[in-house]
C-alpha cells in the first residue's frame, strides 16, 4: 500500500511526462501549474483529517493510475452512448470520453440565439480567461485538495455560458464516460456560468464500463441574479471505480438553485457539495440520494454558506444502505455574522436494509448571526415491518413491497427532480 506522499510523486511523474513539454494553451498550463503547486503545499488528505475520517484512501493512493493522453483510441459509437442518455427527452448533450470532448457523440446544435457551448480545451489563449474569476477562487473557503488535483491534471470539460435573460428550452446533459482497459485517472471539469434572469436545467452524469479507474470531477456553477437553476448529478460509475466529485455553486442575489446529487455507482465515492449564498433573498435546495450495496462506501460532505441576510436553504440527504455498505453524511451550515434572518433546514435520513450496513452522520452548524432559524435532524432506521406486513397482507409480494417502501422513503428527494425521465430512471434504481 502506498502513502499519500508516494501517490503525489506518482502524480508529479505523470504530470511531468504529459504536460511539461506539452503546448497547451497558456491558461491551461497556468491552471495545472497552480494545481500541482497547491497540492505540494497542502498535501493530500488522509484519515487523520477530520473531514476525511471515514474515507477509503487506499482505493486511490494504492493504485498507479495513468492519465489518459487523448482518448486512447477507444471507439465508442453513438448507439452505445444511448444507454446513458435521457430517455424520450430532448436535451443538449455533451459527451466526454475519458475526459475529452467528443463532438461526434454529442448533440450540441443550439437553436437558441447567443447560447453557445464550448469546451475548456477549445478556449483560446487570447483575452481574459472567461472563468478566471469563477474557478473556486470565490468560494475557496473549503480547502479541498482533490479540486487541486483536478486542476493539476485538467484536460477538458464543459464550459457553458448562458447569457442574461435566457430560458433554456431543453436541459443540458453533460455526460462523462470512462472506458477502456487501462487503469485511468480522469479529471473532468465543468464550468457553468448562468447570467441574470435565466432559467436553466443541467444534468451531469458520470458513467463507466472499464475496470478500476479513478474519476475526480469538479463542477463550478455560478447562478446569476434572479436566475433559476436546477442541477442534477448522477453518479453511476462502474462497480470497481472510485469517484470523488466536487460541486461548487455560487449564488447571486435573488437566485434559486436546486441541486440533487444521486450516488449509485462506484465502490468508493466521495461527494463534496459546497454552495455559497453570496447575497440577499436567495433560495437554495440541496438534496442528495445515495444508494449503497455490496461493500460500497458513499461519503458525503456538504457545506452551505449563508453570507447575507434573508436567505433560505433546505437540505435533505437520504441514504439507503444494504449489505456491507457504509455511508457518511457530514453537512455543515455556516451562517456568517451578516446573515440575519437566515432560515436553514438540514435533514439526513438513512434507511439501513441490513445488519451490516452502517452510517456515520454528523451535522455541523456554525452560526455567527443572532437572529436566525437553523434546524438539523438525522434519523437512521430500518424498513418498517408493520408496513411490510400490511402491504403483503394485501397480496403484494415481498420484493414489490420492499421496492414500494424504499421508493416512498426516497420520494421527497426524487420528486424534486424536474426532468421527468431522470426522475423515472432514479425511481427505477429502487426496484
Amino acid at each position: 500500500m502506498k502513502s499519500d506522499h508516494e501517490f503525489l510523486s506518482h502524480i508529479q511523474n505523470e504530470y511531468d511526462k504529459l504536460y511539461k513539454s506539452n503546448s497547451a494553451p497558456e491558461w491551461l498550463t497556468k491552471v495545472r501549474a497552480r494545481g500541482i503547486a497547491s497540492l505540494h503545499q497542502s498535501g493530500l488528505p488522509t484519515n487523520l483529517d477530520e473531514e476525511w475520517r471515514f474515507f477509503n484512501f487506499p482505493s486511490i493512493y494504492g493504485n498507479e493510475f495513468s492519465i489518459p493522453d487523448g482518448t486512447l483510441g477507444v471507439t465508442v459509437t453513438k448507439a452505445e452512448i444511448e444507454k446513458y442518455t435521457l430517455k424520450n427527452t430532448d436535451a443538449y448533450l455533451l459527451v466526454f470520453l475519458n475526459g475529452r470532448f467528443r463532438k461526434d457523440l454529442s448533440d450540441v446544435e443550439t437553436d437558441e440565439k447567443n447560447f453557445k457551448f464550448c469546451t475548456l480545451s477549445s478556449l483560446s489563449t487570447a483575452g481574459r480567461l472567461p472563468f478566471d474569476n469563477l474557478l473556486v477562487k470565490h468560494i475557496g473557503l473549503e480547502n479541498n485538495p482533490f479540486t487541486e488535483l483536478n486542476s493539476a491534471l485538467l484536460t477538458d470539460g464543459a464550459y457553458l455560458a448562458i447569457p442574461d435573460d435566457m430560458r433554456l428550452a431543453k436541459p443540458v446533459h453533460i455526460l462523462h464516460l470512462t472506458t477502456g482497459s487501462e487503469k485511468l485517472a480522469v479529471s473532468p471539469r465543468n464550468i457553468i456560468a448562468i447570467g441574470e434572469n435565466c432559467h436553466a436545467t443541467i444534468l451531469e452524469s458520470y458513467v463507466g464500463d472499464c475496470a478500476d479507474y479513478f474519476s475526480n470531477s469538479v463542477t463550478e456553477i455560478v447562478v446569476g441574479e434572479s436566475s433559476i437553476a436546477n442541477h442534477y448529478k448522477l453518479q453511476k460509475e462502474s462497480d470497481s471505480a472510485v469517484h470523488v466529485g466536487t460541486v461548487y455553486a455560487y449564488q447571486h442575489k435573488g437566485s434559486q438553485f436546486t441541486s440533487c446529487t444521486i450516488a449509485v455507482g462506484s465502490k468508493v465515492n466521495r461527494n463534496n457539495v459546497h454552495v455559497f449564498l453570496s447575497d440577499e433573498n436567495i433560495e437554495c435546495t440541496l438534496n442528495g440520494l445515495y444508494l449503497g450495496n455490496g461493500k460500497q462506501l458513499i461519503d458525503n460532505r456538504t457545506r452551505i454558506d449563508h453570507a447575507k441576510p434573508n436567505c433560505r436553504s433546505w437540505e435533505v440527504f437520504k441514504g439507503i444502505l444494504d449489505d456491507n455498505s457504509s455511508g457518511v453524511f457530514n453537512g455543515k451550515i455556516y451562517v456568517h455574522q451578516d446573515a440575519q434572518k437566515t432560515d436553514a433546514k438540514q435533514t439526513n435520513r438513512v434507511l439501513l436494509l441490513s445488519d451490516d450496513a452502517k452510517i456515520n452522520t454528523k451535522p455541523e452548524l456554525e452560526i455567527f448571526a443572532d437572529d436566525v432559524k437553523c434546524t438539523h435532524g438525522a434519523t437512521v432506521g430500518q424498513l418498517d415491518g408493520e408496513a411490510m406486513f400490511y402491504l403483503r397482507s394485501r397480496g403484494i409480494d415481498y420484493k414489490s413491497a420492499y421496492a414500494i417502501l424504499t421508493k416512498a422513503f426516497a420520494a421527497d428527494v426524487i420528486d424534486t427532480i424536474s426532468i421527468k425521465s431522470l426522475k423515472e430512471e432514479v425511481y427505477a434504481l429502487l426496484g
Partner: protein
Amino acid sequence: MIEIKNLWAKIEDKGILKGINLTINKGEVHAIMGPNGSGKSTLAQILAGRETYEVTEGSVTFKGKDLLDMDPEIRAREGIFMAFQYPVEIPGVSCTYFLKSALNGIRDHKGQPPLDAMEFLAMIREKMDLLGIDQNLINRAVNEGFSGGEKKRNEIFQMQVLNPDLAILDETDSGLDIDALKVVASGVTQFKNSEKSVIVVTHYQRLLDYITPDFIHVLYNGRIVKSGGKELAHELEDQGYDRIKNEADSALPVEESIA
C-alpha cells in the same frame, strides 16, 4: 372455506392460543367475541400470516390448502383479507398505487391480466360511491393523516376492491362512532353472499346489530369456551363476560388438560 384444528400459538414464551377448533363454511358469518387478552386478535393475525406469532401445534386448511405454509401475500392472493385493527400509515405511497399493486398481484396469481389505469379507476370509482369515499382520500398516502373512521372505512373499501373469499374484520368497530359503524356494516353486508365467508372479531355486541352473524364464538384464555347462535351476543351484552369466565375457570384448567 376454512378449518382450524387444535391451533396453538405463542409469542416469545407466552402461550396465547391454546387449542382452537373452528370450521367456517361458505356463506357463513362468524363472530368471535371475548374479553380483552383472550386471543381474538391473535387468531385474526395468524390467519393473515403475521410472523410475530409462532404456531406450535395444529393446522389451518383454507379451501383445501395448508394455510400456515403460505406467505402473507399468497394468503391474500388465495382469498384471505384481514381488515386491520390499526391500519398502518405508509407515507409516500398513494392509496391508488397501493391498491392497484395489490389487485394486480392477486389477478396475476389467478392468471388474469392486470387492469390498466382506466379499468382500475372505473372499478374503484364504483366501490368508492358505495362507501361514500372521497376522491381526495384515495389520492392521499395510505392511511396517512386519516381519521380513525377514515382508516376503518378504507379497510372495508380495500376489502371490496380486492374481493376476497374470506374477510376477517379485526375489531373494525373499535373507535367508530355510530355513523361510521353503519357505513362499515353496510360495506360488509354488500360484500357477503353465499360464496363468501366473514369472521367478525369484536369485543362488543354493537357491530353485530348491523352485521348479523350465523354463529358466535366466545374466546377466553386462548380457547373457544362457548359457541352459539346470534342470541348469544345479547346474552353477553346483558351479563358481560364474567359469567363465561367463571364457568370456564371452574372447568378443567387449560394448562393441565393438556399435560
